[in-house]
């Protein structure tokens, strides 16, 4: 009997279309970009595709502050926003769980920011934080809290803050919704047993609720890790990396070097660094998810 008629071949046959598309759109391009990152390829000079330069691109970016500063900023940005999103999401989920009316309506409202196009979120907050006509400045001035127009997107620190707000607004609901689903699914018995045994609310939360919620938190983290790079859209619209590169993230830097300066080889080397960063991040949370799932399976 040929391989493909056997029962054991069925799952592989079912997965073939998925594998083929991934190979065509992701794996082949990634191999190609790996190759390009070792050349001095420039878009305007097609011949330079065969201009092998070895590790020169990598050596350059790894010794260049213009790369490391956006790199560090990206890591800092992700650390800040992801932690805040988790804490805010947890707070919101616990709050809504306590509310007895309109839970479903609240949950529906919460889902909306998730479904906004990131580019739209960027534009929306650019509109709100506009120094001249933005609602934020208008409100501050009308309330008499500030005299002049605050240049939210021009001052480097404020711009970073504004971008973080936009990102948090967009993605906190991922955490809130999944953690809320976790709270809904939580069995009542352990909570009541803890009460009977005299645990205070903090102890109950720390030792029963939180461990139960962690798999849900890791699902949220795993989902978020798949598209953290969506922050590129927000930054592009809100500041485009400015003022003077002060809000440049790894992804806007890649676009600038690759498309604006047409230095594809160099941009691909940077893209590889960012890809590895993303993959490590996803892998880490996937592992956490699997471990948490196993732990839960044992506990139940």
């Amino acid at each position, binding site marked *: 009997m040929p391989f493909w008629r056997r029962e054991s071949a069925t*799952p592989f046959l079912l997965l073939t279309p998925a594998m083929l598309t991934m190979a065509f759109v992701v794996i082949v391009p990634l191999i190609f970009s790996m190759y390009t990152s070792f050349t001095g390829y420039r878009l305007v000079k097609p011949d330079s595709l065969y201009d092998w330069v070895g590790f020169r691109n990598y050596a350059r970016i790894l010794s260049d502050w213009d790369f490391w500063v956006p790199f560090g900023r990206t890591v800092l940005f992700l650390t800040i926003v992801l932690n805040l999103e988790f804490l805010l999401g947890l707070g919101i989920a616990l709050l809504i769980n306590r509310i007895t009316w309109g839970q479903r309506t609240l949950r529906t409202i919460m889902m909306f920011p998730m479904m906004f196009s990131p580019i739209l979120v960027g534009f*929306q907050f650019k509109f709100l934080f506009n120094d*001249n*006509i933005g609602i934020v400045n208008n409100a501050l001035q*009308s309330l008499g809290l500030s005299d002049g127009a605050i240049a939210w997107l021009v001052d480097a620190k404020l711009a970073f803050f504004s971008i973080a707000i936009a990102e948090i607004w967009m993605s906190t609901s991922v955490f809130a919704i999944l953690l809320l689903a976790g709270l809904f699914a939580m069995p009542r018995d352990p909570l009541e047993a803890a009460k009977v045994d005299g645990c205070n609310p903090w102890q109950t939360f720390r030792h029963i609720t939180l461990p139960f919620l962690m798999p849900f938190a890791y699902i949220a983290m795993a989902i978020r890790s798949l598209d953290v790079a969506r922050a590129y859209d927000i930054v592009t619209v809100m500041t485009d990396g400015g003022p003077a590169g002060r809000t440049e993230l790894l992804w806007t830097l890649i676009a600038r070097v690759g498309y604006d300066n047409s230095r594809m080889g160099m941009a691909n080397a940077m893209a590889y660094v960012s890809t590895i960063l993303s993959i490590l991040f996803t892998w880490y949370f996937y592992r956490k998810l699997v471990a948490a799932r196993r732990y839960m399976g044992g506990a139940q």
Partner: protein
Amino acid sequence: MSLAVESQTSKQLKRAGLTALTFLLMVVMCVPGLWVVLSAFRPNGEILAKPPVWVPEAPTFDNFRKIFGLGTDQVAIPVGSYFMNSLIIALTSTVIALAIGMAGGYAFARYRFRGKGGIFLGLMLFRAVPGIALSLPVFILWSKMSIIDTKLGLIIVYVSLNVPFTIWLIDGFFRQIPLSLSEAAQVDGCTRWQAFWKIEFPLARSGIAAAGVFAFLTSWNEFALASQLTRSTTSKTLPVGLLDFTAQFTIDWAGMCAMAVIIIIPALILTFLVQKHLIAGLTFGGVKG
């Protein structure tokens, strides 16, 4: 007695506090979006007014008429064709991604095979490649195949973008269906193929629809890849078209808000329809592996 009264008032206070906090939260969640929607129905003069006009004085549909080229003063932005491009690209890629995702999801939910965990993880890791990083090699390869600035080029990319997550969701939905149902059908003489279409598919249908909506929205909202792989009205999508409203130093805020509303509305309606299934799919498939 006084203790009981006290605890009751403190309880009421607590409840009022919770309600106020929730209300505040909803305001923070809603205001940014609502303000854009509101601005879409105001003339540009009112948006730019100093001192600010808080309550719209002259609600108008002019901004929408303008961007669709119906008014007297037309905007040279072909929103109509962007909309059609977005719709065609998002729908086609969703249908293909669902077909591929159903096959893959079924394989993960119903079969044991070597390297299962590894393949699943691999799919997820490839999904994690940042759009802009992927766009560099795809841009070069697509231009060598001359499918830059075609709908086909973008559809291919979006299918692969959606396949991993669709598999994740659909895998979760198939797992919720007891294996015994399809086994019983097979005992009664159905082939596995018939059992799938007659038993498992109808039961998972709403979940699959939710996965479809998610895939649709991913394509509908995507920007990083679309902005590099499209050039003209033949393939530009709505998110890319949004940038047409920005000139070097000025932004047509009213037009942009109107366009924002056009992008948001389909997304909101779809989200509203499937939100319950989406949450169920994400958590069930994830936790009870």
